[in-house]
């Protein structure tokens, strides 16, 4: 039996915010998104769907996968957790969180919860639309001494100690049979929308209980963000004409050598 914990985050769909609103937000210093519906962060959503596909794939091999989903958030997370339960997630958990917590604190709370479960695989999205620090999965991997693979686009069962992981690095896809336990950071995977449960599946999972954790705020050891400062907002753009990425890299490399920015 392989146990998988998926961590996910609900967030507003920033693509739906108009240019005019961004401008207004910049002028007035606040962006009110109360009217927008929240959705699962896109890479987290891929992770949730890939875990279900992993479970489906197990069914054909005689293996078994137990799925668990956890999210820190407000009440609106509840309906997503119910959806996940209807889709076959065996356990779900909501960590109450009214404010946007810093990644250190989130990983601390998650870690506390995960420690109890002792999963074989922790699945997180690579980034989120806002505050894309990519820190949560890395901090967790560090905490548990687990290997962390980023840019993951797929993972499939091998045996109880191994899985096959496909991941993207520098524009290339790699496939590897990796030993468990693992933290998988799901990258940009096309067409991995979360499947939709039928009303019958929802009805069948109506008795599902979501575990709710109230974080102990007094015991907050994570980093505290005290303020932001724009370091440098200048950007310069130049088109490099190269027939492919290697040729373009060669042009940049030669130029940097010439300008003395780097040594050979």
């Amino acid at each position, binding site marked *: 039996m392989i146990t998988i914990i998926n961590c996910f985050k609900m967030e507003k769909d920033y693509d739906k915010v108009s240019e005019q609103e961004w401008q207004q937000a910049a002028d007035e210093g606040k962006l009110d998104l*109360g*009217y927008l519906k929240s959705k699962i962060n896109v890479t987290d959503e891929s992770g949730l769907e890939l875990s279900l596909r992993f479970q489906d794939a197990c069914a054909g091999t005689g293996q078994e996968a137990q799925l668990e989903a956890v999210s820190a958030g407000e009440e609106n997370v509840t309906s997503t957790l119910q959806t996940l339960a209807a889709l076959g997630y065996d356990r779900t958990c909501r960590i109450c969180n009214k404010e946007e917590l810093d990644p250190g604190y989130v990983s601390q709370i998650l870690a506390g919860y995960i420690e109890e479960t002792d999963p074989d695989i922790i699945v997180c999205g690579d980034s989120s639309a806002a505050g894309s620090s990519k820190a949560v999965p890395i901090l967790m991997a560090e905490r548990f001494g687990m290997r962390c693979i980023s840019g993951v686009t797929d993972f499939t069962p091998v045996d109880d100690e191994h899985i096959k992981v496909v991941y993207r690095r520098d524009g290339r896809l790699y496939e590897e049979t990796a030993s468990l336990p693992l933290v998988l950071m799901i990258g940009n995977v096309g067409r991995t929308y979360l499947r939709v449960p*039928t009303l019958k599946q929802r009805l069948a999972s109506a008795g599902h209980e979501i575990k709710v954790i109230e974080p102990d705020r007094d015991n907050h050891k994570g980093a505290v963000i005290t303020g932001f400062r724009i370091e440098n907002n200048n950007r310069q753009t130049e088109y490099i004409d190269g027939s492919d990425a290697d040729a373009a890299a060669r042009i940049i490399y030669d130029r940097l050598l010439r300008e003395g920015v780097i040594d050979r």
Partner: protein
Amino acid sequence: MAISREKIVEELKNILRDEQVVTDEQVLKESSRDRYRKYEQCMDVYTQPIPAAVVFAESTEDITKILAFADENGVNVVPRTGQSAIEGGLETAKENSVVIDGTRMNKVLEINETNMQVTCQCGVPLESLEDQLREMGLTTGHSPQSKPLAQMGGLVATRSIGQFSTLYGGIEDMIVGLEVVFPGGKVCRIKNVPRRSVGPDIRHIVLGNEGALCFITEVTVKIFKYQPENNIYMGYKVDNMTDGFKVLRQVMVDGYKPSVARLYDLQDAEMHFDWADGKCVLVFMAEGPAAVAKATAEGIEAIIAGIDNAEVVDPAIIEKWFNRLNWGPEQIAEEREEIIATKNIGITTEISGCWDCINDIYDEVIERITNEVPDLTMIGGHTSHSYINGTNVYFTYYYNVVDCEPEEEINKYHNLINKIICESAVKYGGSIAHHHGLGKARAHMVWEEYGSSFYMLDTLKKAFDPNGIMNMGTLIPIKHDPENPWRF
């Protein structure tokens, strides 16, 4: 003997410039259907006869020549403009049809600020017309969710209705005059007057004809002062649909005319809002001169005060949400991606009924669809257009396409759901189509819908299109199996 495909193309090229006659395989395939077959569109499956050509008309004269040729040679034609049809109106149901595209007839001919009316060709996109008018402080008052897609000819041809209908009405309340071309090439112009009493209102032969009687080349619609600064948005949560219907009815009966009056059931509300908390949601917008908007808003508030447990929603949330309701090409592309990935598809069917039956229709449809449709993932609905005597319900449903070839999806799911909705509407005395038209999908219920008045529709069709060349299968079906009317 039927004229061959090659001959049709050859003759069309004699009538028009070569460049106006398109025979590109992909264009032809995509022109054989509309969003009624959304799943087939997503899966790149084509089940309808592929047309012989798509012709891009540039003038009334072009249309005249095309319709004369088609009539003489028994060639079925399918008029189109914005291609946002969702009930099969654009399907080329007969072999070797010709699709007549009016999008190049896209000139705004006159904006008359004295008479407060605008005249434009059929291919004028509503959104660009509306943008132009708003810059002048004017509006058509017409705002269907498909505003970024639909064009004036199609909007008239389908008897469309916009989101501000409770104040401005449907297109039938806005239309002033028209120019149309009938099979054989006869051009008719209906002049622009405020009202007249000279026999039947012949505009209604054109309105809603769905391309099955004539081609609309020009339309004149009313325009209004655009004064968004006076808009007042309102939102409320109520316990159930019965309370919601009660509020809507009272607003109408008391004589208030908010431009927007919508009621979402809890499933539909959950699709739209994070904050519905398992309740139904009422949305209103009052507009017009400041004093009128204010009085309308106050009247609605007073009615709401009489409803137990009604909760007020922040108007700013409602305003921002409402301004994002429209669907353009971007949303359609996004939806396509999701359908391909999940095989989960969402569709809508809209009906109408008087106040004394609308709640019954709503309840029965929800119950029957929940119990009878396999692989259903959501069924809900909202009402968005209310009248003194009743309202509409716009059912929204999603299902997973399971163990089913793309060609069969329409029969296994979509038609089954349409059948249930139409049966309930007819059973309680409502109408099977509030604003999307009968198309070819719901044409199979035309006899039940019309009852004894089918005689009038049939007579119109026979009189204006004696050779059966105008969008055959639309309004009145041509392939109809009385034993299995919903199996296409």
